[in-house]
């Protein structure tokens, strides 16, 4: 029978024996901690990608020539504007600058709030610049010219901005050597979602070379990538979980072996088999749910406050070390982790608990 007295008593007995549960608590917390951290990181990256995608228009159009990307010129914009259902078409400039000293490319992106002498860099980029003694300003070498810009601000890196330098559009054209009327790509704003697919089909008819990427396609590309990685990880993790639950079952059985006398005492004062099983179920519930919240709390701190050292390297490679994960707390993901870990935990202690409860009670009579 479940009532407050019974619950209090279960907790008292549990606190008395907390040492016995410490082992499973720590290991189980660690297992949940790893899986939650991985999911936090991948959810956060995915969220960042989707948010930035949502800030772009509904369709992205790039130009190609002979299979290679090629700047798109202003005529395209005017023609696409004629397509019915299109609200606006915006030309965008971006590209890569070859930082030859360190044999790497920086992404150049446009931020029109900047003036002709300043730039904003991500913290990852800033770390690299510092190594080459560029602490306040940086020189871009372009054919026949040198552009010097002040570093106005250093921003946190996220998955998209980690190797990016922001400059205004004119400077970007200079660095990337693009003509006035050229753009790297254009984004199309389509207010009515149902029209996106139709418009995406019309554009290649006007420009056979155009590469058209509607947002839902990019989104499902992201999704597929993350489902795939997440799924493989989860399948591997099942092996870890199963080994843990076998371990847990043995450990609990061993611990319960030493508790025979106590159970016999409880039986002698009127606890039924059902009551003992319930008592053990409550205690294990407290341990499992306790580890669950404990682990989630620490993995939140680990990923979003400490920036997930070690795990980040596995995810992103060591170069992108300054990336900050945007904090998210997705209830559905937490529900998933709960089902994945707590339910099998409880399932694996059912049989040991019952065995303990039906143990021969004659010991108590000696």
């Amino acid at each position, binding site marked *: 029978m479940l009532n407050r*007295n019974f619950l209090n008593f279960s907790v008292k007995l549990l606190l008395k024996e907390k040492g016995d549960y410490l082992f499973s608590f720590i290991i189980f917390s660690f297992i949940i901690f790893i899986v939650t951290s991985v999911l936090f990181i991948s959810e956060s990256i995915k969220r960042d990608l989707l948010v930035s995608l949502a800030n772009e228009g509904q369709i992205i159009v790039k130009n190609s020539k002979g299979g290679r990307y090629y700047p798109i010129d202003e005529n395209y914009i005017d023609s696409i504007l004629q397509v019915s259902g299109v609200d606006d078409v915006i030309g965008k400039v971006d590209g890569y600058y070859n930082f030859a000293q360190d044999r790497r490319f920086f992404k150049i992106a446009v931020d029109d709030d900047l003036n002709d002498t300043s730039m904003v860099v991500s913290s990852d980029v800033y770390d690299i610049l510092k190594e080459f003694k560029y602490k306040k300003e940086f020189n871009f070498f372009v054919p026949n010219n040198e552009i010097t810009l002040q570093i106005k601000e250093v921003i946190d890196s996220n998955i998209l901005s980690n190797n990016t330098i922001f400059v205004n559009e004119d400077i970007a054209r200079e660095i990337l050597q693009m003509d006035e009327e050229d753009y790297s790509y254009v984004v199309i704003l389509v207010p009515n979602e149902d029209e996106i697919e139709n418009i995406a089909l019309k554009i290649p008819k006007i420009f056979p070379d155009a590469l058209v990427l509607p947002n839902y396609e990019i989104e499902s590309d992201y999704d597929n990538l993350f489902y795939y990685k997440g799924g493989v990880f989860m399948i591997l993790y099942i092996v870890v979980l199963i080994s843990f639950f076998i371990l847990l079952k043995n450990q609990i059985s061993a611990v319960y072996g030493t508790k025979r006398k106590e159970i016999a005492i409880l039986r002698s*004062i*009127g606890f039924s*088999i059902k009551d003992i099983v319930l008592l053990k179920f409550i205690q294990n519930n407290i341990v499992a749910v306790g580890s669950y919240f404990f682990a989630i709390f620490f993995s939140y701190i680990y990923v979003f406050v400490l920036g997930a050292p070690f795990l980040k390297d596995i995810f992103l490679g060591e170069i992108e070390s300054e990336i900050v994960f945007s904090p998210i707390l997705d209830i559905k993901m937490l529900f998933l982790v709960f089902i994945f870990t707590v339910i099998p935990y409880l399932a694996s202690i059912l049989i040991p608990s019952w065995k303990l409860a039906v143990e021969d009670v004659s010991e108590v*009579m000696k």
Partner: protein
Amino acid sequence: MSKITINNLYKIYNEGKESEFQALRGIDLSIKDGEIVVIKGVSGSGKSTLLSLIAAFSKPSSGKILIDGENISKLPDIFASKFRNEKIGFIFQSFNLIDGLSVKDNVLSPMVLTSLGQDTINKRLKIALNLANIEHKENQNIADLSGGEKQRCAIARALVNNPSIILADEPTANLDKENSLKFLEILKKFKELKKIVIVATHDTIFDELPFVDKYVDMSDGKFV
């Protein structure tokens, strides 16, 4: 009508195996309300087995135990446990308290199965502690008690649910002379409270007590 009626009771361990052992062989006994019964016999004579069967703690191989007219030996575990919780108070030789809990928690442990309110529970606790003369140690841990105090704590636990039957299995075996005599005083109190008490013992201190209603000698699983 008798409160407890035992009919032709047998308990056989490891039935059909080579190690078969007959712990009880045809026990008949009837006890009226408020009677105190002392079962005497050496260890291994079947006293403890008999007590555990009366408490519906284990089940007989054949025979009947009627308590208040109900055959408790066939009750499913849930009913047997409820019966034990409400009607039986157990006092053991080795006290059988739960280590690491306070006197109060130990005494209250049978009550966690009831859904009584806090007031009733506290009242019952007071009465039980008082009867067993242990109220001054209420909040002490079991580990800090002497043997006699542990015994009294166990008695308080046996009384807390106000059972009508008290079973004592070698209650004085772990006590010194002084504490054993104190136990006899408590036995008298039980008599005043009109409880049935069944004491299984081989201690001579229980011999020829004026308030004991019945003495039975037991040997090899039979009354002699």
